[in-house]
């Protein structure tokens, strides 16, 4: 009997040992790794059933007519607001009964007033937003119930709800006073900045998914470029002396590394831009006039480790995606030592970052595919909204209580739109 007991224990140990080896072997040759951020392993959560969103029916002058006037809005990097509207209209989280809604969405396209060159003008956006809010507060009781605390808005412009492309002006304006209590879903994110409110959700800028898919090259193509960047270093039109654009960081990159064979950097825009990114180990994502850029999305899709040169930036879905483990953060003051910083990263760390980038859920989370797919940016936004539930009791105001100042802000904003 005693022998059998020992045999049984021996078999248990052996089985334990074998079970330990198998996943160890698999883990080494595993091409991807699970991603879990500060909010936990939430990238693959399904928001359906966790929240309900009510979509206000605004007159078409706030959305459809604007889009009809300029259909270029569907392709530029601010197109997230349009695609989010379309997604919500046909999503299972949408509810037609506002009484049971957790969140309220206002479809107003504030970033669709384009110059002939295609850049959005933000001068009318505050008035447009204000007019929309006046509409919903007078036609439905839900805005006044919470003064917008359970409403969310998409403001994908340069500095979010500050509605200006110039940083000093944006800071001076601050976030639109009427949006002080609402949740803002925006691309801009910088810590300790006026234009990033507590509780905002940062999203990636829109990048056309089909265009990137058509430029994929076989994965066995060896990565032979060390650092890759294409873009402006000096904005000669707007900042002829340098030092203002990108806080001098891009110019510093150029001046320090223009003759370095490891750095494939230039201002030319080649036709093989996407293919080249897939052949690079590191892709620079420095700030421009605003800290965010579609380069981050492109780098993630193409498996190139993003090197983020923007002080205090808040990257998309920062609570769901552990960006420090995926990208490399470089302070702007350390730019002259960029080559030392990058070459001193141990190869195991680099391989781990590449494994994390290869995770398909990571790539999905950065995209706005049409039609929506599970795990994409739309769902991440909904997950973020769901994580903010349930609403705090203090959100609901007593009837007659007023917190927002409807006359605050520059005089020009108060004009009707």
């Amino acid at each position, binding site marked *: 009997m005693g022998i059998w007991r020992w045999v049984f224990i021996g078999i248990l140990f052996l089985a334990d040992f074998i079970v330990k080896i198998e996943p160890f072997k698999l883990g080494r040759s595993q091409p991807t790794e699970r991603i879990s951020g500060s909010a936990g392993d939430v990238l693959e959560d399904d928001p359906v059933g966790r929240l309900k969103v009510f979509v206000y029916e605004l007159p078409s002058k706030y959305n459809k007519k604007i889009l009809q006037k300029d259909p270029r809005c569907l392709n530029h990097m601010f197109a997230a607001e349009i695609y989010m509207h379309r997604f919500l209209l046909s999503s299972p989280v949408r509810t037609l009964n506002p009484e049971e809604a957790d969140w309220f969405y206002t479809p107003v396209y504030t970033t669709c007033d384009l*110059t002939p060159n295609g850049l959005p003008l933000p001068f009318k956006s505050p008035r447009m937003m204000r007019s929309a809010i006046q509409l919903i507060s007078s036609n439905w009781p839900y805005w006044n119930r919470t003064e917008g605390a359970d409403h969310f808005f998409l403001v994908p412009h340069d500095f979010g709800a500050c509605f200006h492309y110039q940083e000093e002006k944006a800071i001076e304006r601050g976030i639109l006073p009427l949006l002080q209590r609402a949740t803002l879903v925006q691309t801009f994110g910088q810590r300790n900045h006026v234009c990033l409110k507590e509780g905002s959700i940062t999203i990636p800028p829109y990048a056309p998914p089909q265009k990137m898919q058509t430029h994929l090259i076989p994965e*066995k193509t060896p990565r*032979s470029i*060390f650092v890759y960047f294409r873009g402006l270093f000096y904005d000669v039109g707007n900042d002829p002396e340098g030092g203002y654009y990108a*806080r001098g960081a891009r110019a510093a990159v150029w001046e*320090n590394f223009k003759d370095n064979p490891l750095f494939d950097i230039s201002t030319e825009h080649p036709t093989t831009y996407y293919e080249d990114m897939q052949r690079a180990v590191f892709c620079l994502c420095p700030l421009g006039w605003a800290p965010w850029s579609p380069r981050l999305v492109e780098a993630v899709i193409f498996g190139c480790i993003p090197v983020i040169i923007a002080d205090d930036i808040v990257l998309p879905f920062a609570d769901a995606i552990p960006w420090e483990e995926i990208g490399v953060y470089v302070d*702007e003051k350390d730019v002259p030592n960029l*080559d030392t910083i990058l070459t001193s990263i141990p190869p195991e760390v680099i391989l781990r970052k590449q494994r994390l980038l290869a995770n398909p859920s990571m790539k999905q989370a950065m995209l706005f595919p049409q039609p929506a797919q599970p795990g994409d940016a739309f769902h991440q936004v909904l997950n973020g909204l769901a994580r903010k539930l349930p609403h705090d009791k203090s959100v609901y105001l007593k009837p007659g209580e007023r917190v927002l100042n409807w006359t605050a802000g520059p005089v020009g904003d108060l004009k009707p739109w």
Partner: protein
Amino acid sequence: MKLLALQQSYLNRRSNSFRSSGPLDSYSDSAIKSPAAIFWIVLHGLSCLISLVLGFRFSRLVFLLLSTSSTNFYTSPFHSSSELSKTLDLHSVLPTNPVGNIPVPALNNTATNSRVVVGRHGIRIRPWPHPNPVEVMKAHNIIERVQMEQRSQFGVKDPRKIIVVTPTYVRTFQALHLTGVMHSLMLVPYDLVWIVVEAAGISNETASLIAKSGLKTIHVGFNQRMPNSWEERHKLESEMRLRALRIVREKKLDGIVMFADDSNMHSMELFDEIQNVKWFGAVSVGILANSADTNEMADQKKGEEENPPMPVQGPACNVSNMLAGWHTFNTSPFAGKSAVYIDDRAIVLPRMLEWSGFVLNSRLLWKDGDKPDWIKDIDTLDGNIENPLGLIKDPSVVEPLGSCGRQVLLWWLRVEARADSKFPPRWIIDPPLEITVPSKRTLWPDTPPELPANEKPVIGIQEPTVKHTRRTRTSRSKRPSKRKHDEARADRHTEIVSVNARNEMSFDGTAASTIGKSDCSAGLREGENSPAESKIQYTGSRGGAEKNSSEWERSLDRIGFPSKDKLSKRC
């Protein structure tokens, strides 16, 4: 007007055509509130006017001089907020204290604990902004590690050893061709064995060349000399390859046999692709048929609209990606015009199907073991075979590789030097030449170079060789003004013979100009931007010229070249 110009230039960030609703807002705010503000506006206006006249920003200069000195590292220090107020719109929101270099946050709405400041920043440049070789090496190691990982994930699983068969013989271009193949093989990430079969026995040249590769090599001699006609050469090469295959059989080497002729060019994808072969495979070979006489070809092509595509030899597949036949080289356009002897200046044609387009599993060559029945035994071959298809009984078993022959993975080219071309053994000039004078243009003569009548022929080099031309050429391109000098002097085509007792070289005429230049260089150096460069350029020739100046003069006079005195006067 100045204000408007400022506004426009600054707000023109987005586009040229702009709606004026934006600027109008800021106009209403720029109320002038204090004498200090008026003073600054006046000063700014004055600076603007002066800048217009001078052509650069005068105000910046003033502030640079006024403020504390900047360090060497920064192109422009953090500017005071008054400077900012000059560059921005004249908002009275900005605090108007001009003094000091404190990086005050430009606007009072920023949170106080933010370390990111809006405004003009310095462009940080480190003291020596050039690549560091240690970093470059580290980066290459990282890239290699990443590529290794990529290969292990997406590349061939269980790669087999590659057995490369190369027939070669000692000749002028052997070093050129063999080095190319060698470097390609050194880059192959798989295990490799290189069997080099050499006609006319093992020679030191080949052995020393191969030893530099660091690859595992088997160097075998073949007892016949390489004949002079292309026909014979192809036949002998086939025999040499069969000799190598016999070695594979004897040593029972296990892997994939491929044929790398020493003048072919191989792509790295080739070595990845042949790992997919099971028994006997074929790849597409691009034919770069060399024609020394391009005029003839040009006449032929006048009738055609565009250049004909490069001919490709290899397997041809039908729609269902099965082997249907072969693409071979069409020799009929070249009938009668092809090269017969190795150094003919006519086009060299490939065979119907080249050996290099085939790969085989080495187990096919073993005496025993499990191999398919369609392979013939090497020992039972009664003579020479033209291509590896002679080894198999049934040509339909060949596996087409490279997406069914659509990818061209290697290129065939046959270029050989003239039969009477001489080259130093192992391409080493020993002892080194004493005088090296850069020449401007080297005529590559079709006829042997003219030797001056009273010079004795010397053992060694007779072909023109040029040294240091590259350096002088690049440094010349940086100094166009100087070159005009030289151009005026130096359009002559006399030949100058080096006076080195051991070797003779022919040069074109501007050697004199360089001598002259070295004399003038002292005088001209003031005008140069980079005196260090001129030193680098001229040390060699000047040193040489000074050492052997008397000999130079003698040689120059002999040929009728003007003496140094005349040259120096022309500076």
